């Protein structure tokens, strides 16, 4: 059974619907016990980093998640959920992340070409830089849907795929059994569903 971590951030309806469309059995985990029962985990998230990280910690789900990663369970962080897997974020000050993937989350605006809009909103091509079972049903160059103003950097060794926004924006990452996507697979049409399908089979 797959568990979606519910720590009071964001709307899980679309993600749950996407899994349903793929006929993937899943539950919405609100307690560490429910999380421990799962064999794989999706960590969603929208909004501001500091607020979400605090809620994850206070709900007791952070500790449970880190334990499950230690036990080798596959985890997929989506959007802000991915950002929280890193060591730290610089969204309105410095905030500690879970430290499950080396790297930091920094403002796009500091690194992209002047004149480009932030947030980076819309469909962008995802270019695979390192082959992985996550891409079993996905061809490089397909479009995925992004909505974000911060991105993960200093994580080249762990980067699976990037999208061009005058710089290569970190799109998908992996460290061992811990995966993350900056884009929203549950909002990326058929291409996104195929990434979720592959994650469930990992």
């Amino acid at each position, binding site marked *: 059974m797959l568990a979606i971590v519910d720590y009071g951030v964001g*709307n899980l*309806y*679309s993600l749950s*619907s*996407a899994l*349903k*469309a793929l006929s993937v059995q899943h539950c919405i985990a609100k307690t560490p016990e429910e999380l421990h029962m799962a064999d794989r985990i999706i960590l969603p998230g*929208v*909004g*501001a980093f500091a607020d979400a990280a605090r809620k994850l910690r206070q709900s007791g789900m952070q500790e449970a998640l880190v334990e499950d990663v230690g036990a080798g369970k596959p985890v997929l962080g989506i959007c802000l959920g991915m950002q929280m897997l890193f060591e730290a974020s610089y969204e309105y000050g410095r905030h500690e992340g879970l430290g499950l993937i080396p790297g930091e989350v920094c403002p796009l605006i500091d690194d992209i070409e002047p004149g480009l*809009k932030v*947030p*980076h*909103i*819309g*469909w*962008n*091509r995802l270019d695979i830089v390192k082959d992985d079972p996550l891409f079993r049903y996905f061809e490089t160059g397909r*479009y995925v*849907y*992004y*909505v*974000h*103003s911060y991105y993960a950097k200093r994580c080249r060794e762990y980067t699976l795929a990037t999208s*061009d*926004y*005058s710089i290569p924006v970190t799109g998908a990452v992996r460290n061992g059994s811990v995966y993350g996507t900056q884009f929203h697979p*549950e*909002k*990326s*049409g*058929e291409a*996104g*569903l195929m990434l979720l399908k592959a994650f469930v089979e990992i």
Partner: protein
Amino acid sequence: MISKRIIPCLEIRDGRVVKGVNFEGVRDVADPVEMARFYNESGADELVFYDITASFEGRKLFTELLRQVAAQVFIPLTVGGGINSLDDFDRVLRCGADKVSVNSGAIRDPSLIGAAAKRYGDQCVVLSMDIKRVDGAFHLFAKGGREDTGMDALDWAKRGVEHGAGELVVNSIDTDGVRGGFDLELLDAIAERCKVPIIASGGAGCKEDFARLFMHEGMDAGLAASIFHLKQLLIPDLKAFLRESGIEVRL
């Protein structure tokens, strides 16, 4: 790079899709859930739903059909119409909307933009504006384009972005329903002042209109209703044409 977005707009009244011409006289076109699936399969990049129902029953019908769409269609969904409070944001976000568009509600209470941006993030708040030329100036209209607020639309757009609107829908009443092309003069004036994604609305009549739109700097998306609903323009054909014209689109 980010591709240009093609967005069909579905105006819903009592659970059915309607589309006015110059905002007067509406006619039924189709079932919204069926239509959303059709657009998803034909390559729409996003869908916008405007709830133009006034009644409580109609509103319940709307959120129910939104849930049905979000359960079947996995592309971004923007919802507007009758958004006057944070509770309204909550109501549609829980049913699977990704972005919420505010219009008259933000004119009545401009602090709604900032409050929503703070709670849900800038990316979630879309400021939608109905704009018409009055005595040589761009005026902001409220109540579905029926009421001239007397406000300068360009100032309003700028203020909206400063308060935290993450995207702008710019609907020109002058070009709406006329099918003579988007209102490029208005759109350029907005793009000069606002550095957030701009969704152009009102006036699309053929694929060349979209090509002309995207040749202008700062235009991110083109929105249209009846030409798509009546299948006078098919999205795969439109996108193939745009790509041939050197415009990046998702195929």
